[in-house]
């Protein structure tokens, strides 16, 4: 099973993590799949949801997923997964709450290839500083069947889209971080506090 991410998706996840570095962040991944059994899942966008863990235990989670799905369909995509960055730097585990949401995306929207992207916190710091400019700071988790558990995939399963290398994607993303673009990235929590903040974050990266 192969998954690809583009600069827009990587950029939004990294900016969300950079904006709320001291807490946990999560959101939906939007993408497309051609329907072929071996066909890759192409992750082309991300919708940042929350930066406080309590919001995951609220009706806002279902509301955000429904609205992300609605937005995805207007741009020819669907919700193909969920991303999560844990609060503690050394916490690389997939929490039960994250798995639960992954199951909801997989089962409720009927997308058996739904994936989970866990931001690798230490890798995130190296990615931003340029030390690890040739690897993406994510661990990809997939579920092979309905009754199985979420398993981490090999690094090679996550590829870059648009003919770009990881280095180039990193440059695009770092350019935005350097410009302080994270202050212009709005997640669903912020939208709830001020409706004019648009969680679609259109044209923020590309």
């Amino acid at each position, binding site marked *: 099973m192969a998954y690809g991410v583009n600069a827009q998706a990587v950029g939004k996840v990294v900016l969300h993590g950079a904006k709320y570095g001291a807490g946990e962040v999560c959101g939906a991944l939007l993408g497309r799949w051609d329907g072929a059994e071996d066909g890759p899942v192409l992750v082309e966008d991300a919708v940042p949801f929350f930066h406080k863990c309590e919001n995951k235990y609220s009706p*806002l989670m279902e509301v955000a997923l*429904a609205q992300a799905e609605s937005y995805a369909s207007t741009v020819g995509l669907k919700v193909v997964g969920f991303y999560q960055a844990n609060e503690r730097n050394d916490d690389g585990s997939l929490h039960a*709450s994250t798995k639960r949401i992954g199951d909801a995306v997989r089962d409720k929207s009927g997308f058996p290839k739904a994936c989970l992207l866990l931001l690798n916190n230490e890798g995130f710091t190296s990615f931003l500083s340029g030390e690890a400019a040739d690897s993406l700071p994510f661990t990809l988790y997939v579920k092979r069947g309905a009754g199985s558990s979420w398993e981490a995939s090999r690094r090679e399963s996550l590829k870059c889209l648009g003919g770009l290398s990881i280095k180039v994607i990193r440059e695009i993303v770092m350019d935005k971080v350097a410009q302080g673009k994270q202050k212009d990235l709005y997640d669903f929590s912020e939208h709830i506090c001020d*409706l*004019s903040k648009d969680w679609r974050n259109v044209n923020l990266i590309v």
Partner: protein
Amino acid sequence: MSEQVAKHGKSLIQNSKRNRQLSEEENWLVHEQVCYALLDTGDIDEAKEIVEKLSLRFPKSLRVFLLQGALCECCEDYGKAQEVYERILQENEAHQGAMKRQCCVAKAQGDTEKAIGMLKKYLDVFMTDVEAWEELASLYLSMQMTKQAAFCYEEAILIQPQNPTNHLKYADLLYVLSNASTLHLLHQAIGYYSVVLDLTNGTSVHAKYGVLSCCDAIKSQGRGASAKLTEDEEKLLSKVSRELTTSYEERSPQLAVHLKATGITTTT
């Protein structure tokens, strides 16, 4: 927030013309606040300078020791931080700051169970500390212990009944805890969301989403009579639905279609 305090606070401290306008007491208060902000933003070297200044000026102050402990935590030297806090507690066994920071050390080391145990002991003594109840709830949620988290929000509500935040979090948890055989929790949640709307003059979007979600869940999970809302709940549902739809149309018309797509509003 911390970034702004750090940025502007630093320029205030370093600019001798400006800080001479502060009284001595205010000056040191600002130093303390800026130091905590610098620890939040990770500016360890600058925070160290301020801690040294404060330690020189107040060599026996437990408040400065607390800051030294927080600095050790920021440098991930948890052993040293623990020593500092134990020293403070030897001098004053009821020092709230030190007791709470010990919980922070346990949390930072990933020992959530220990952090919960320590925070519970703290709350046995200081049971009116709302922030501590909120933090305990957050720790319980991270361990999926939703019922225990709900209890914490109940305590917080009893202490600060006029604060909408805890009513909101409690209502959210009631929603999450409910299922087809415990629909009464959804009715309770609607009650708490209504209190939030009352306390926020009808402006809380989160509470409105809460009301809409609860009503939708009752109608879809209930069977027969249990799928019905009371007359007041029906009135609240249409009012909230109308208000939220109008708010979107006025402030965020490009997103109104996605609100409608959730299927929880009643306006056509």
